[in-house]
């Protein structure tokens, strides 16, 4: 497969020249929003020469709800229930970052137990999210067995969430000031059982997916991200690590209990779709190890919430902060500005998909075969709701 990027270097961000559609030589094809080969509700406007893509434009906004506006008219406690909706498959990172930003600006220190429960919650979320993603990746190449396995198994992880937080999808567990409850009885045992099962499942997935001749043939060499693209394109997370760049916020600027957990940053060699997928598989395994460590080390009792003011009229002093965390897709950040009132002045949510799905996708798509677009899209691991918010 040849790479016809049309770009001379990583620093050449020029938009492709418009082609003469009237000539009849080219076809314009919309992939999405109603299309099974697209992640979430977004669309790609593809211009084809034969079955080769010569131009790709990402269209987003189908899920735009105006969160940043809505948050400006809700109080600090009310916002915590809103933020989890920003990234549907991974709500917890939003809850954590929002709470963390609020705590930082209001000077609240959360207790030790809350720190560990938050860490565990985030890692469970990462596990659930990766399980779903692995399924998506396999499905994008026409192999529907693995999605059935992993998505079904994700449901068991959601069961853990349901027990721990009271909800399957929108947990609303990490609240400014701590978490909402401790662990229920017997949770630890059930969690360990599910981790064991997940480990077994990942072995099976590795065998049937990553050793699959078809998957290998189609994903290797697809959508290579070169190391010199990382900074100009703002590529983060597994997409960046897969080409050997060792960047992981959990290690670089440890938050929560990550400095007390034992793990190594995983990197790959050349960031093509296969490498990225394999790296995520390894990270999923790492996730399981982290959850086990959390179960070992998390304090069993003690307070899980800091002393809070009355949240009904909670004012936070004027300030500004940017907090970030390593989500499954890389750097997820909340930028928050307060002005001393009961409402937040400005929140900006920085989702890694913002650049992965638009600038990076548009560049990587060019030159590829139309059939590989779904795989390429999934291999970048993008969630549209966090792009448009």
């Amino acid at each position: 497969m040849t790479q016809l990027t049309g770009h001379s270097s990583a620093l050449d961000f020029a938009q492709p020249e418009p082609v003469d559609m009237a000539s009849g030589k080219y076809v314009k094809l919309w992939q999405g929003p109603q299309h099974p080969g697209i992640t979430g509700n977004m669309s790609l406007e593809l211009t084809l020469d034969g079955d080769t893509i010569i131009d790709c434009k990402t269209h987003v906004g189908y899920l735009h709800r105006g969160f940043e506006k809505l948050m400006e008219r809700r109080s600090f406690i009310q916002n915590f229930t809103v933020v989890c909706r920003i990234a549907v498959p991974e709500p917890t990172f939003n809850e954590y970052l929002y709470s963390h930003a609020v705590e930082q600006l209001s000077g609240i220190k959360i207790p030790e137990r809350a720190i560990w429960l938050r860490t565990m919650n985030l890692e469970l979320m990462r596990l659930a999210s990766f399980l779903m993603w692995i399924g998506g990746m396999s499905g994008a190449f026409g192999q529907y067995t693995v999605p059935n396995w992993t998505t079904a198994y994700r449901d068991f992880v959601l069961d853990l969430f349901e027990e721990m937080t009271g909800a399957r999808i929108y947990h609303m567990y990490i609240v400014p000031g701590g978490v909402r409850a401790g662990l229920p009885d017997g949770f630890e045992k059930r969690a360990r059982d599910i981790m064991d099962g997940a480990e077994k499942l990942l072995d099976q997935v590795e065998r049937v997916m990553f050793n699959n001749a078809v998957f290998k043939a189609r994903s290797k060499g697809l959508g290579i991200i070169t190391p010199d693209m990382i900074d100009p394109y703002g590529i983060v997370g597994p997409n960046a690590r897969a080409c050997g760049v060792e960047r992981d916020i959990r290690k670089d600027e440890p938050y929560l209990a990550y400095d007390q957990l034992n793990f190594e940053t995983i990197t790959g060699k050349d960031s093509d779709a296969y490498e990225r997928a394999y790296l995520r598989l390894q990270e999923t395994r790492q996730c399981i190890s982290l959850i086990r460590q959390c179960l070992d080390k998390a304090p069993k009792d003690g307070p899980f919430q800091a002393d809070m003011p009355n949240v009904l009229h909670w004012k936070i002093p004027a300030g500004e902060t940017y907090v970030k965390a390593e989500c499954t897709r890389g750097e997820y950040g909340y930028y928050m500005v307060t002005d001393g009132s009961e409402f937040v002045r400005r929140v900006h949510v920085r989702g890694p998909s913002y650049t992965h799905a638009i600038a990076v996708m548009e560049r990587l798509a060019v030159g590829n075969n139309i059939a590989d677009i779904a795989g390429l899209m999934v291999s970048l691991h993008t969630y549209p709701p966090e792009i448009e918010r």
Partner: protein
Amino acid sequence: MSLKDLLSPFFVWQRAFEKPYTTLRPTLDRPGAPAYRGFHINITETCVGCGSCQTICQNNAIDMVAVEAYAGRAGDSGLRPRFDYGRCCWCGLCVDICTAASLRMSNEYAWISDDPDSFHFTAGVDDKPWQDNELGYRRAEGYHLNPPKRIEMPMLSAQESLKSFAEVTLGYNEEQAKKEADRCVECGICVATCPAHMDVPDYIHSIRDGDYEKGLQLMYRTNPFPATCGRICTRRCESVCPVGILGEPVAIRWLKRFIVDQVDKKDYQRILEKPIASTGFKVAIIGAGPGGLSAAYYLRQQGHAVTVYEAQATGGGMLRYGVPSYRLPDAELDKDIDHITSIGVEIKYNSRIGKDVMFESLLENYDAVFMSTGLSVPSSMRINGENHARVLSGLQILADVASDRDPGIGKKVAVIGGGNVAMDAARVSRRLGAEVTILYRRRISDMPADEEEIHECQQEGCTIVPQAIPVEIIDADNKQKVCIKWGEAKMVDDPKGGRARPVLQEDKMHTETYDCIISAIGQSSNLDYLSKELQEQLAFEWGKLTPAEYQHTSMKKVFVGGDFANRTADAISAIEDGHHAARGINRFLNPDFYTALEKQEN
């Protein structure tokens, strides 16, 4: 590509032999987790309708609706939350903030309908199958969205406080007050409960804003005695404060005091409203206690000329002569009274009605008369020998101390009674250096006195002997000492469910000698200034009377209020009586008042 790559996909078949885990009947076989956030449950009996759930709901999913069954309950707004499941996101914030912990969630989650207008229900009122669900989300132990504990009031230590009549409570500082003010949920149940209906949430809000002048203005809308009430109010408001259901109620009284403490007396004139232009009407008021002065203040605000007749040499009535200065320093009472006089209320001291001025002449010379002479006569213990020279009245001792006279109580005293006067008399005696024993008929928990006062009284070293019934005073001729015989009592439950009754146990009698005995078992009114005919015409019964809607009486022009005209007999009720009488008089001065009343009755 290797052979392995070709073969390994076939390993998918290994799963074909695993046990399937399909849920056969999903909704039945998989109920929500024990702490699942499902549909709402409201224990409507415990709910007080404070509306915090409505305030915190970011989706405007909760409406407060009137529920007939709970209308008019004490400490209850009569409203209950109604949920819109076209809005609710099951975040559970309403459960977390619920002051009464009446709101919960069940683990039920299935509601399917083809009618989009049907997704409303009033939890606990509308019949829903999940109302009695045991499982579901509850607020976790130790998780609060509002601090449950109040800020401790800084106080003098017991040793320190005994040394002088200096005020025991020291008052919040700004930080403490703001923290305490923060705990208010602004439901307004306190407003409904406060006899004077003070705008509590609003003035607490003004503390949070740091705008104390506005706070003072708000308080003067309904109460011209904020400095006094900020110290000694009986605070019915706090007893219904929903924050107090699970934690401690907001310290409304101390916050009121804080506002007054922040504003200097000389700024009052600038901050507070001035009376409107003179109307030319004249109103006479009998008694410069809280009731009389409150009426005077609001009548003066309406532009009427007000003259207050007071038998004593200073104003304040029971507030000055019945409340010791370690609870209410004179300066604070003066702060309130001085503002009332500063707007043009005239107080004639040392003018006793019936002696210096005749009641009838007031009726003649004024457009309206407001009587608020209170309860000034100590009640009798109704035991043998109580006329002993060393049996003193609690009121008298308090009045003596307030007027800087030595009551001469001696070194060892017994106080009889369990009300605030008894506590005050005991604490005053401690300050005068006496050893004090309090004898009370019932249990300590039955004492009508303020809980805090009982506690402080004990802190200061008074011994409380509960279930002690005085039987007789012996040793009638001893001019120096007095001997009392009292018997232990047994509490007998009332079969009708009323208050338990103490029954004297004849075999357990004690006698003890004291330097004096202070009787403080209640007061009654002194109506000597009214002729028998007038008393009858005004329908006094046992020295008390019940006024009509606007504090008016069966006699034209005459309005009453204060302790002898209400059941609660506390300062804040007297203040409201005065305020309400002012409203009534204001209307009465409009000639259609009685005609309108008659119409209303017909």
